[in-house]
């Protein structure tokens, strides 16, 4: 092999590795766009601004004390999402009809879309983000993964938080208890049988 073709080969390899043919090239291109583009997804964390932030709210969220300036008409769901960037809490119907925004407040499940944030003053709020301890999953989260208790995952934070509240008040629920407690959490993907199995498994694993 001549020296020429050797260097050719290396440059071709470089080409394949970096620019590549067709679609590979695009992959590289994307990462370079990502670097140049200051508004790439990872940097995008600016919550909306609200000029009417006149009130101070003190509360505990996921074990941390928070002091927030808020608009007094904000709901708890809006404050969690927009002020604390806890976007795991979803707003689905915004009228207390679906359970998608469920969080746990002083050990009880509440619809965060359906209460003023100011009503959470001094309370202890747990959101889906609060269930993760470091890299450790909560046993409910583990069970939802193992039993495939989700599809699109949009209702999932609410489902898990409802189940979390249920287990706090009733550590050994049976099938009917679970169905009853979670009937306020709708899932359009229809993952109900697996959601039920997930909670049952979590109960079993805990014992």
């Amino acid at each position, binding site marked *: 092999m001549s020296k020429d073709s050797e260097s050719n080969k290396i440059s071709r390899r470089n080409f394949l590795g970096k620019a590549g043919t067709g*679609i590979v090239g695009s992959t590289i291109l994307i990462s370079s766009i990502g670097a140049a583009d200051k508004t790439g997804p990872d940097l*995008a964390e*600016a919550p909306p601004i609200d000029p009417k932030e006149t009130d101070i709210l003190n509360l505990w969220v996921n074990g941390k004390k928070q002091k927030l300036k808020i608009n007094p008409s904000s709901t708890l769901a809006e404050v969690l999402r927009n002020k604390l960037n806890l976007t795991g809490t979803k707003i689905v119907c915004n009228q207390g009809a679906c359970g998608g925004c469920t969080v746990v407040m002083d050990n009880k499940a509440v619809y965060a879309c359906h209460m003023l944030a100011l009503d959470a003053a001094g309370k202890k709020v747990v959101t889906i983000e609060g269930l993760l301890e470091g890299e450790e999953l909560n046993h409910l989260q583990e069970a939802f993964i193992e039993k495939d208790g*989700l*599809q699109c995952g*949009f209702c999932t934070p609410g489902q898990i938080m409802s189940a979390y509240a249920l287990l706090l008040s009733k550590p050994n629920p049976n099938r009917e208890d679970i169905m009853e407690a979670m009937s306020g959490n709708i899932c*359009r993907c229809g993952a109900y049988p697996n959601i039920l199995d997930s909670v049952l498994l979590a109960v079993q694993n805990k014992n």
Partner: protein
Amino acid sequence: MKEKFNIVGKPVIRQDAFNKVTGQAKFADDYNYPNQLYAAMIRIPVSHAKIKSIDYTEAIESGLVAATCDSSDIPGAKKVGPIRKDQPVFCDEKVVTSGDVLAMLIGENEYELKQASKKVKVDFEELPILTDIEKAMDEDAQIIHPEFENNLIVHYPLRKGNIDKGFEESDHILEQTYTTPHIEHAYIEPEAVVAVPLEGNRGIKIIGSIQNPHTARKVVAAVLGLPLTKVRIIQAELGGSFGGKDDTMNILSARAAVAALKTKRPVKIHYSREESILESYKRHPYRLKYKVGFSKAGKLKAMKIDLLADGGGYSCMSPFVTWRSVVQATGPYEVENVWTDVRAVYTNNPYTGAFRGFGSPQPIFAQESLMDEIAEIAGISPIEIRKINGFQKGSVTASRQVLRDHEINLLKVVERAAEESNFLSEWNKNKKDQSNAPSFVDELNPIVKPEHFIHPSNNVKRGIGLATSFRGCSLGAEGVDAAAAYISVQTDGSIYLLSGLAENGQGLKTTFSIIAAEVLGISEDRIHYLEQDTGIIADSGPTVASRSTLMGGGAIKDAATIIKNRLNEVALKHFNITDYDVLVYRNNTISNTENNLKIEFSELCQLAFNSAVSLSAVGWYKGPNVGWDEETGQGDAYFTYVYGCQVADVSVDMSTGEVYINKIVAVHDPGTVINIMGALGQVYGGVTQGAGYGLWEAIESEKGMIKELNYDLYIIPTSKDIDKIEPIFIEGEDDHGAWGAKSLGEPTLELTSAALANAIKNATGKRLFNLPLNLEEVLLSKKLRPKDFVRESSK
């Protein structure tokens, strides 16, 4: 015989499970950008009007608005649509349906924007409202879109045999009419999109809850007048779609893009539930007329079918949706003489488009109800009637397609479902019990009288019913059918994978990863699935028609096989052997047991790289040819089909008309099951949505205005509404796609309502013709309207 697989068909944890159970998964509304603006829509509260002028003065004077946006800001196409370009991005001449948007206000604060939007003055002239599909084609009907001659969106005829002769030869003729309502997708995540202008003439980047990024890109590029490459669409994690986040999202993306380019700042649109239900398209309501002739023994002789679909204000996907109806209107039965007409028309009702099922749930409800009626007249069981008429190998469909090349498992799924549910003995028992069923209240006078009181022991009646179908896989003769996949193997044996078909939340990423892992004999956790981005992967058509596992899976298998072939060469050289048939890819190693040779997958990848072998590839899968004659409706409509049968077991409360679902047995032949957890999820989801369609759901509009704008009025099934769903898979042989994996998502939904109708008949003796089969339908055989309740005193 089926191949022996390493991981295909085994339980595999979803790719996205971790992020979704921890709240870390990023959905469209979870993306925010510095300097981001919001948009508020301007609408008028009517469903048909001529727009005279829009006056923003007061809104602008309020100081809350950064910019306004309307059709005058659109540099490119002002109207869009998948076939007919009849839908304006911003309406400037007419409003034809209640969700129509005339303009947008753009500003910093969305609360204030809502206030400002009340200050926009729209001068409009109301036009007569057309809501009755039967009247849409009348001579004197309002023409909804004056640029067309009439309100007909599309007409598909199908002609086979001699219909008159068929009826002449029949011993019995039965005629029935059925109706189905508008249905809302009700995906739990409402629509959201952010458009980010890119500096330096680089176009625009859009992140959104977009079902089909490549379709959205086409629409946005056309509206902006930009080349496709200047529009980059990234799909955020999608919170459910079911066919619903296609056209609506494409238009929302275009609106956000127009505003972003105008203001040179990122612009976010996110809808409330009310706006979502108000503006998004629905499942088509159908009016279905069936006339069927059959012999004493129950053999079908002739079918005359007239289907009319409500397209609403825009044509959208109506031409595709109704085409599936014309192919499948006769059901999975051989009928010698068929005369079918399917039409879709414009009205001022909410517009309609793609929705899981796609033109099949409506005819199946009608035609499977009808089959049970025919069985009753012929004096045979629901199973027998389907055995006499059902497709088998070599059967000829209504479009004269001969069924072969795949296993025709129709009778197999029916038999299995019957066996599993103990169908015949239950059906006979319930039927006998019917004779002492109490009578319902007087249908004409729904006031309960003492004689209507029902003894508790007689209050609940059990019923069992079945429905079966065949379903054409993928797009069929209605569209271009091909898909791409990209694979790139790294030197450590980890792999980037991406399909051109976008995940919709149903678990496609996992399915695709399983296929690649199977081909290469590796564990699926080595696969890193890339973000869905139009900048990376080729247009592969939409994630619709339950085509993704079949078409997308075929492409993934092709891509992985290209890599495997290249690795084979490297391995042969390394082992110093010549026959690659002896190489086994399994457990992350490549081995040749005869000669006791083996190498780690990652080592082999490093070796390949060192020998300058490319480990990136694009796979491609193209469906076999199909064809259709528009005049006669004859041809090979789809290249392969799937078969399913569902049995519903219900309890009916005879005093309230409430139906409780004890169990649904769902037997489906989706070909090879790749992702068993995903497949089970599809059955649970499809049956649950099918049950909602059967018993509860309906969007009712008055003068085109929707009443059910949130989940308080639009009732979808909860965890308490169905006791048990039992999925069973029969894996038929097929040569197409990845090891013969076919469709499942839609077949699971399309059968449930018909099975429920037949079960309610078995329980109560009453045949019902209008979905949903809610309390009033079951009790009174009609839908109650407010005007039905007139007080005696006010008469």
